[in-house]
């Protein structure tokens, strides 16, 4: 837990509840504090409200009850989001896609060019700025999507199962790169995943959730210091953490049944 010492709360969710259509309780009694600099994973079975939590944080939907409190001012470009699909605009080139957050703020391409190039450099796509999305592989499209989320250097980046559709080799590579990017930006990350292994490798806090109704079951700290490299995946420490998280997830599944 030492690595997280002295972090300031960025977002506090207290007793947040979300009910859809008056009957589907997607989230119940969710209390969670996200600290600046956290790499936080939301892990849980399908339907436990992970995406709902993310959409609440993004401000796309509003809680039925409970409160979300942000510390400090929230400005435009303070938040980046990556979905399960790359969701790029097929009619625009890679760099124009990354330009989007700036463009919507009225910043011209030339003015944003430095940031766009830097973001694409960081995701390893400096060579592909003029390509159209259809010319890229699935992993590369995801990289563009990540570059778009971080081009404005946001304080918080939300990722909703971004690598679920990718093969394992690509996923490992993107996991490594994501950690590097996070270190470079110094931002906070909330990462939704189904994978125990992914959550342990990436995060310093794993929030395990259960379904029906969606709620937090337990929180585990992964205190292995960053930077973490590929050899972390084969270490005993990693194995021990995955065992703990798996057990917690098993409990969550049991609790739901």
């Amino acid at each position, binding site marked *: 837990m030492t690595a997280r010492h002295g972090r300031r709360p960025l977002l506090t969710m207290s007793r947040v509840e979300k009910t859809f259509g008056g009957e589907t309780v997607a989230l119940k009694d969710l209390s969670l504090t996200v600290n600046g600099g956290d790499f936080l994973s939301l892990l849980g079975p399908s339907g436990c409200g992970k995406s709902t939590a993310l*959409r609440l944080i*993004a*401000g*796309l939907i509003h809680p039925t009850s409970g409160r979300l409190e942000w510390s400090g001012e929230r400005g*435009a*470009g303070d*938040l980046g*989001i990556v*979905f399960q*699909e790359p*969701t790029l*605009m*097929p*009619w*625009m080139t890679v760099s124009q896609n990354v330009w*989007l*957050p700036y*463009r*919507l*703020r009225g910043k011209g391409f030339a003015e944003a060019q430095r940031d766009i190039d830097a973001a694409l450099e960081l995701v390893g796509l400096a060579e592909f700025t003029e390509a*159209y*999305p*259809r010319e890229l592989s699935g992993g590369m499209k995801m990289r563009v999507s990540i570059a778009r989320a971080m081009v404005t250097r946001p304080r918080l980046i939300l990722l909703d199962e971004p690598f679920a559709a990718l093969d394992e080799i690509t996923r490992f590579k993107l996991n490594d790169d994501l950690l590097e990017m996070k270190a470079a930006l110094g931002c906070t990350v909330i990462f939704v995943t189904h994978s125990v292994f992914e959550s342990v490798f990436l995060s310093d806090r794993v929030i395990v959730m259960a379904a029906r109704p969606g709620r937090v079951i337990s929180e585990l700290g992964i205190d292995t210091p960053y930077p973490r490299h590929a050899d972390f995946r084969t270490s005993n420490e990693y194995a021990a953490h995955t065992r703990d998280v798996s057990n917690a997830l098993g409990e969550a599944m049991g609790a739901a049944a």
Partner: protein
Amino acid sequence: MNLSDDAVPALDKEEEFRARRNRINRIAKWTLPSLVMALSLLAWHLYVTLNDVPHYVLPGPVPVGKSIVEDWALLWPAMLTTSRLTILALFLAVTGGVALAVAFTQSRWAEMSFFPYAVILQVTPVVAIAPLLQIYVDSAFVAALLCAWIVAFFPILSNTTTGLKSADHNLHDLFTIYGATRWQRLRYLAAPSALPYFLGGLRIAGGLALIGAVVAEFVIGRAGTGLGLASTLLEASYRFNFGRLYAALILISILGIGIFAITSLISHLMLRKWHESALTREI
């Protein structure tokens, strides 16, 4: 199998076969239809001459060709009139259809209130409306224009409306997160998403505008206003001038082909960079 590393052939058998097939296809795409055309003309000519078919039943290609040349002074202005009618109707259909589609997607109330009437306009046969228009509208050209517009308008409206709504939901969320204005959402997300749908509608509407124009000329042009190709065709049939009738028919077809070619070209040029429909598969 004794190929050394540097002797790997640039094209394997399959690739070679594919390259040859592509080459042949490129040529055949033009030569085959041309050949069919030439053979049909020849068959037509032989049928008419060998059977001594009277010209008022079916004129041969030679008299029809002659008629095109001899009546050019009459046919060309008629063709211009029909073209003007068609293109103007198409233009109005595009502006009206797109404007209404945008209004529909910006306001649910507008869509609920007016969409049923757009459908009614579409399903009422234009042949039935044309005589009425002739009564209420003084200018025959304007009446014909309205007819053609009514027919061409709906596919643009309906396709563009669908297209404007077709944008990815996650992208919409992204625009919300970045605080996009209504105008930005329309300009940068809805409009580009709608483009392929709109262009599909445009190609249909181009053909329909011509059909609308021809129908309108049939019904309205009879009043001796001397409109375009279709009225010329009708008049030629009254006079048993079958050479001219066929000449007008052929020119109408050519006009239709021209409109289709132009709208297809526009569509190709606008989509070729990114849309699946405009991409040639490499494999």
